[in-house]
């Protein structure tokens, strides 16, 4: 049963990591345009460099 001493913290940590990422995605407006984002992935233009 000593394995629990590792497994429980690990599983909690990984779940918490997922939650933290989710919080980040909500905070950075990633659910504002779900339909557009699902289409943008098909476009071969990158828009991660905003116009100067």
């Amino acid at each position: 049963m000593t394995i629990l001493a590792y497994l429980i913290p690990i599983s909690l940590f990984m779940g918490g990591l997922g939650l933290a990422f989710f919080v980040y995605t909500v905070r950075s407006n990633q659910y504002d345009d779900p339909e557009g984002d699902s289409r943008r992935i098909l476009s071969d233009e990158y828009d991660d460099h905003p116009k100067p």
Partner: protein
Amino acid sequence: MSGNMRPTPSACPACAAAPSAERLAEEAAAHVSAQIALSLPTIHCSACISKVEKALNAHPGVKSARVNLTLKRASIEAESDITAADMKTLVEALGYEAHELDPGTLNATANDRAGRELLMRLAVAGFASMNVMLLSVSVWSGAAEATRDLFHWLSAAIALPTIAFSGQPFFRNAWAALSNRQLNMDVPITLAIVLAVVTSLWETALSGAHAYFDAALALTFFLLAGRYLDHRTRAIARSAAEELTALEVPRAIRLRDGEEETVNISELAVGDLVLVRPGGRMPVDGEIVAGTSEIDRSLLTGETLPVFAGEGQGVSAGEVNLTGPLTIRASAVGADTSLHRMADLVAIAESGRSRYTSLADKAAKLYAPGVHILSALAFVGWYLYTFDVRTALNIAAAVLIITCPCALGLAVPAVTTAASGRLFRRGMLIKHETALERLAEVDTVVFDKTGTLTAGTPELTNMAELPRRDIELALALAEGSSHPLAQAITRAARDAGFAPARVSDVTERPGFGTSAMHAGQEVRLGRASWTGADGLAETATFLSRGGGDAPRAFIFADRLREGAAEAVESLKEAGKTVYLMSGDTTPAVEALAARLGIERWMAEALPADKAERIQALTAGGAKVLMVGDGLNDTAALAAAHVSISPASALDAARVASDIVLLGSDLSPIAAACDTARSATRRIRENFNIATVYNVVAVPLAIAGFATPLIAALAMSASSITVSLNALRLR
């Protein structure tokens, strides 16, 4: 994005203490950049996105442009000298429909903070309930003694902070209800969650076998899911409704010392001179000081015939200027205009929707006291039987958890989300939360005429009776004018293959008509009094050919709106009584009623008449659906059991109605009644499912046989059944 790239103006550390420099710089930045929002109703694919964005970003002066496909909207940040009209023509050149939106109106909904907060709470509850469920499964599958206690303590450590965070919406609502000495659905929910956590903690401290942490969390999760669905449906409706409002950019042209300046309507003051161009809507009440024209008052009174407007005549906000530019001296602005006063009266009037109790409220009224009594009885009964507070409390908690309205909380939102989404795709926007339920009960439909059953554009009806020569002459005169009747003549004559007669010196006299020289004689096309004809009851324009001939009448009827005939027919087929009520003249209304096969009609109705007639119908036991668009309909829209207005309606009418038709087609109305009926049926079925599950599980809980496993199974099973049943909606 560009905000991050801006160099900080306060470079020295000491300046950080004086943030005014930065604020000044920010204000300056706000001055040089303009926020422009465009509505793009026809974009639909990734190619559309990149095409529009590329074109907009390539335009000099545009800092950044981003298309949102979900909202079908483009937001542009640009230099201050770029106007929305430039951007609109740019996008239209690509072949997409574009409309300017008022960013001020949109900003109110830009950040859906409440929705985001709910989503966050939902995510935390989901995360915690999955983790606790994992621990609970090990307990149910045989973990004992110290291991079980460890798992229970871990569950408690996850559950307590989660419930403190995620349960807040329920706690707040319950507290609000209790402090008003009322019971709502959130009171038993809060009690169940709190009691479950407290008894579980107690059990855990005494190393007992049963802890309900997973149940408390699953409860929170399912209920939050219902709340979130509910919120989303309403947020989508609200943002679409606000987009409709934002389409009318509130701007007016003010004349100051002979100079034209474009200002916001809110900046206008009494006594200002306002210029209204042909096609524009009057922004204020006032008096015409210069110019002659014709004005269309159909949105206010329902009459289709344009009215002559000349110097000294009064105009009201909301009327549309048709032919010539008018200068108006404002006598009432903003909230003092007659348009606003009438709209406010409607808001005060008691409306059908406030009298209606939703199915969910009815269920809650039965449910909330029932649950409390049941669980209190279980506690008292078991206490008297065993004299053990711990057992009695455990069983009372189990009863509360098992009866807790997971399924009830999902029953209504799951169905309304599915139904609203379906209707939205067909072009109907459900604005009010109980609109669907009320629509399902409708047995009588009242239509307004102008702008609702008819499109508000005239159509030439007597072309077959007119001699060829007259039509050609009229076409020649009409072609130069933007008046709706002239355009109708042009359209009809061109479609029939006529060519214009040869005329010279075509001049338009705003408010009267068009004149020209033909074969050495003056010919005129226009108002009866100007062409020397006797007026007719129908909408008509007259052609005088000079010489001694009597003027020739061109008679028009309002063109039917797309789908109007189908809508009336299918509503009648469905066994509903159809009425037509209009402020227009008797012959016009009678003709339309005959054309659509509506037997019951009422003409020359004042706004109060319409509302009274609807109240009389309601008093006679009818559930009335009112479909109307004008200011003269708003009182009737508010008085009816449920109301629909087209997107072209006046803002006040759209606010008063429960459902907005987004397209120009009327045919979805009949289909919407069917969808509403099947949605209500699904809601009732869902209530039955929830009840059946309670009937099975509650005796188990009261008898003391309920375990956390049974509670979890029953709760999940009923919530999933209810959601699946909602998806069956066709």
